[in-house]
């Protein structure tokens, strides 16, 4: 253990950094796209189911295959990895945003509008705050997925903790495999814990 850290310590840090960066970028993109899209879907009578099942289909593509499909388009490196992980992150966020927004009581929406709120004020002051806990739990779920799957990104040269694992597999070195896997697990748990905190923080006080 000490020996492993002494040999690979700096590398471990930089790979963890890469791993986090790729995951964060993918998740960030996912949030930017899926949250507004989810809100938009609640405003459309039709199309919600279509978009949702499309996202569902994307989710079922095997990770390796999806990563491989990115190469002709984006080449190798972190860009195709981020794009692929971003696609994976969409569904949970999209679904939870949609459900969260749908869950806001029509009476509340009605009152907000009746008091004279603009569409934007209704969104930012009434609906999104009320849907925030559900949206956050979608983001949290995506985050764990993305961190786990970011391991595969190493396969197309994006770096990250996956490098240890793939090296370990190639060289039959279980210390490398464990040295890559354990930080991934810890990272996922840590992020999940932190986002859980955030989820509580965004929850309207009386609902906590």
């Amino acid at each position, binding site marked *: 253990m000490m020996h492993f850290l002494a040999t690979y310590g700096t590398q471990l840090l930089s790979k963890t950094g890469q791993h986090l960066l790729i995951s964060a970028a993918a998740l960030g993109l996912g949030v930017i796209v899926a949250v507004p899209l989810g809100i938009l879907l609640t405003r459309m009578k039709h199309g919600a189911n279509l978009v949702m099942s499309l996202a569902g289909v994307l989710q079922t593509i095997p990770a390796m295959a999806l990563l491989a499909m990115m190469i002709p388009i984006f080449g190798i490196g972190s860009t195709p990895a981020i794009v692929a992980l971003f696609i994976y992150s969409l569904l949970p966020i999209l679904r939870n945003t949609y459900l969260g927004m749908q869950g806001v009581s029509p*009476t*509340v929406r*009605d*009152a*907000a*509008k*009746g*008091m*004279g*709120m*603009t569409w934007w*004020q209704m969104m930012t002051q*009434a609906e999104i*705050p*009320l849907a925030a806990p559900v949206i956050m739990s979608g983001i949290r779920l995506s985050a764990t997925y993305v961190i786990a799957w970011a391991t595969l990104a190493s396969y197309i040269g994006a770096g990250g903790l996956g490098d240890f694992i793939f090296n370990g597999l190639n060289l039959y070195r279980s210390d490398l495999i464990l040295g890559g896997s354990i930080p991934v697990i810890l990272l996922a748990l840590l992020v999940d814990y932190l986002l859980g905190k955030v989820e509580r923080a965004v929850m*309207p*006080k*009386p*609902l906590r």
Partner: protein
Amino acid sequence: MLLSMEHLRKEYPNGKIAVDDFNLEVDRGEFIAFIGTSGSGKTTTMRMINRMLNQTSGTIKINGKDISKMDPVKLRRSIGYVIQNTGLMPHMTIQENIEMVPKLLGWSKEKREEQAHKMIALAQLPDEMLQRYPGELSGGQQQRIGVVRALAADQELILMDEPFGALDPITRESLQDLVKHLQRDLGKTFIFVTHDMDEALNLSTKVVIMSQGKQVQVDTPENILRHPANEFVTNLIGEERLIRAQPNILTVSQIMLTNPAAITPDKTLEDAIEQMHERRVDTLLVTDKDNVLQGFVDLDDINRIADAHTPVSRFTQDRVFYVKANALIGDTVDRILKKGVKNVPVVDEDKHLVGIVTRTALVDIVYDALHGAPDANEKPASPINADIHAAATREGGEMPQ
């Protein structure tokens, strides 16, 4: 004219015609009550006023301006609105809820805070409650907040959709007093949906009775009680309430007899006795040749006078108690009953004799109003009630007896 609605019609996308040819003019300071069966289109009509719904056809004008040409957000901020299910924001404190519209209107923080304290007092709830969340209040308390939230921005026109539904009678009454005060003393205009007929009749200056998207009757509470447009309205008001309301809507002329026994002062004692005999009465009213009431003669007084040719004027008592034909029964009944007289002459504005009211007819009405008809469901409860009811529903009706 504050608000006018012309030929309003609302057809929902599913083809349901919720409101059809609705017309109403509302002056500043009026209190309009919408009442009607469930699903009759009250909420739909109300929500077209602040453009929560857009009408299929017809026009709504506020201060002469067509609201379909106004910015709906600005329009809504200018109108107070109590929605049917209270609709407080669960994630905002009571204070934030009350300050919602003032904040949207850009009031300063100090002014908003001051208003919040004023409003919580108006709702008769403790000041500490401002820091609580709606979920921590009872249904009735929430409803009170819903009402004062609509008043917080001090708008001129306030829409209320069943605002007092979940309240106990005491709280309800104090909030009714509050809105009545705002209307009567501060000149605010209310449009108010209710299922409570007493509430509608007591608060409003005009009642709009609706059924299946149509206005069945639009009139003052007095006129609606006096002349229900049809059986639907009668049923909605309730037989019981119609009877109770009689002293306050029936005028003396509606229950009087129209051919009182009267004589002119130049006639003789002989004539008087003959007429008393003929009409089988013991007093005669005395009127001059223009039918102006002068007094009355009593059989007891006549007996003391021997000469059959004495003119009636000699023994006319001129201290006669009479009532005006257009007086409300409720206003005169006490005086009549206290006098202890059997019959009271009825005169018009110029003191011309027009009829006579019997004590029996009065007592019946007062009794029914106090205690309800013997059995309000079984109509007509008594022949007299039936007659009075007939009189109440017919303009200038007389009471046949």
